[in-house]
């Protein structure tokens, strides 16, 4: 790769474990090693091109966070060389350099100075930081008086306004609540559209596949596979299914986020799209728990939603999952090329029908999600919006009856 944005050559990281802290002091003084190694990252080499969005996936303990911290220079690698062409910003732990007694204004200067910006550079971006954070007069008050939402707004604004060439994102594609969540998501998308390099570490395979140009799969501190998202994610998902069927899936990650978004709605935030109501009916009968006959019953889902102020038309997605939380099938209006619409009051309805549902005997659950116009950013989701108890007439085994025909 010619002139990569980021080049990692033989970078490893091991943590040192000492039987006694005194051994650490002895080692520092004498220079003789007295530790036991805990290898977090085995020597890896990788290049990330300019403008590339690289996904980093792997199970907990695979070395993802260590890699990101090494790249963000908050950890020193144990070996190897990292070459960075440009400025790095990391959305790892926002606002850690804030001092509670200092005002937002002063914390902007402090945080930017820690990131290596001089006074002139900070002056140049100061107004943009303040405008993006949009916390009004609070900018001149001590940070200790901020709500958690205001705190994260300012921190995110600082982290992204320093105009990094490389952005490191750990898990969250958006921060804050309500309209700011969407605003921060747009900001990250702006980075992608502006051709900035992004390293995106996530457990959400859906988001990784939607965003990334290439994916690296880390396993036990090593690169297990690098390649196109669809190839790497498919193999990774298979491994996850075999190794730990209850590993967090898209459905569970959606649920986590959803509870946070729900809080925002409960507080009366009207500026972002929201689900107003979900009706699930089987053969015309609306209920929360349904009994179905495989291959005969028609499943209909009606999602009523509200469009927020000044945001594009959202999309709706439906997922059917098994009892273990694993998604068995999903459908989304964005990916199906369906455009939703709203009436004059800003309210809309999305209907989806699964005719002659071909799931075989078992218990299933419906998850509903309201997403951004591109089906990436989650506004709200409802987990287990309905429960489906499917029975069947035959003795077929499995989860689904695929359409088929016999030729004799």
């Amino acid at each position, binding site marked *: 790769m010619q002139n990569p944005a980021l080049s990692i050559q033989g970078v490893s990281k091991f943590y040192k474990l000492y039987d006694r802290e005194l051994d650490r*002091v002895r080692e520092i*003084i004498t220079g003789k090693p007295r530790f036991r190694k805990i290898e977090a990252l085995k020597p890896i080499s990788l290049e990330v091109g300019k403008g590339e969005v690289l996904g980093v996936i792997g199970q907990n303990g695979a070395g993802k966070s260590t890699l990101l911290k090494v790249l963000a220079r*908050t950890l020193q690698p144990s070996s190897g060389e990292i070459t960075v062409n440009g400025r790095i910003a990391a959305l790892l732990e926002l606002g*850690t350099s804030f001092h509670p007694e200092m005002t937002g204004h002063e914390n902007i200067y402090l945080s930017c*100075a*820690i990131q290596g910006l001089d*006074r002139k550079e900070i002056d140049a971006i100061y107004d943009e930081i303040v405008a993006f954070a949009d916390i009004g007069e609070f900018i001149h008050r001590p940070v200790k008086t901020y709500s958690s939402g205001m705190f994260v707004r300012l921190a995110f604004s600082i982290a992204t306004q320093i105009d990094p060439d490389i952005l490191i994102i750990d898990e969250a594609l958006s921060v804050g609540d309500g309209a700011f969540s969407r605003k921060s998501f747009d900001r990250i998308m702006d980075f992608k559209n502006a051709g900035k390099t992004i390293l995106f570490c996530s457990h959400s395979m859906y988001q990784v596949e939607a965003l990334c140009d290439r994916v690296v799969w880390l396993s036990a501190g090593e690169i297990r596979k690098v390649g196109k998202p669809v190839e790497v994610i498919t193999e990774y998902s298979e491994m996850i299914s075999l190794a730990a069927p209850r590993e967090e899936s898209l459905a569970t990650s959606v649920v986590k986020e959803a509870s946070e978004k729900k809080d925002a709605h409960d507080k009366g935030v009207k500026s972002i799209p929201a689900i107003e109501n979900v009706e699930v009916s089987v053969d015309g009968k609306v209920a929360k728990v349904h009994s179905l006959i495989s291959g005969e019953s028609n499943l209909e889902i009606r999602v009523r939603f509200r469009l927020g102020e000044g945001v594009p038309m959202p999309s709706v997605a439906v997922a059917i999952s098994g009892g273990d939380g694993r998604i068995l099938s999903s459908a989304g209006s964005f990916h199906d090329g369906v455009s939703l619409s709203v009436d004059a009051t800003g309210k809309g309805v999305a209907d989806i029908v699964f005719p002659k549902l071909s799931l075989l005997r078992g218990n299933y659950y419906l998850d509903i999600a309201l997403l951004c116009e591109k089906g990436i950013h989650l506004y709200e989701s409802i987990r287990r919006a309905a429960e489906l108890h499917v029975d069947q007439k035959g003795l077929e085994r499995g989860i689904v009856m695929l359409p088929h025909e016999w030729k004799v």
Partner: protein
Amino acid sequence: MNFVLGYSRNILQGLLTPYGSVLKHWGLYRMLVKRDILNRTSGTVLGKLWPVVQPGLQVLGYWFLFDIVFAMRANRGPDYLEYLLTGMLPWLCVAEVLNRATLMFREFSPLYRRNPFPLEILPLLIMTIPCLVYGAVYFLLCLVIGGPASALASLVVLPMLMLWLLPVCMLLPVLGLFIRDFAQIVPFLVMITMFMTPILYFPAMLPEGVRLFIWINPFSDLMAVIHGLVQGTDYSWINIARPFLVWLLLLGPAWLIFRRSIPHIREVL
């Protein structure tokens, strides 16, 4: 030969790197000094007056104890109270720096653990506020008791002491972080050192048998130099050479240990 070269290199780096880093990160340094002032004054009624009031109260306390209660008087030489204050204020500054140095890495961990932070500026940073605060009070005091020449000379005293403390401020934070007992013992050691240094008493007041303690204590030499500069008392080149030698011997290893401990510091808490 290699040892001497390596040692010299470490001394040079130990001196130049912290100061160079402060210059390089001047904006950050200024903000951290401001943060430090806020830490001391926020939420208090007297606010920004406290940094000046606090050393003033300490001086008042020592004056009351030794001048009024013990009624200590000098047989010859400078007035006892002037002598006491001339030595005590710089010592209070030293004591504050030493006590803070022990806990330095714990205090600043939120900054360096999650950010690419230049750790080498910290030893100088923890000296800055005490140096400024005690420096201002010391200047005024010397102006009152010794006149303009004495006040002018006082401006050298605290920067000189802080420069001498640089290797100590590299070693203490490392030891304080990895050996927690240090945080308990350092205040005691600081107090004992004060008693072993001619601050509360004239050197001549000490019995012959314990003068060795003064001789092996570099702070005694520094005090002699301070009194010489501010009060015009006698001091010899030995009083300069001895602490300078100790400083030279300490700075190289202190820098080496500080540098070696940086990867540990980021991971240990």
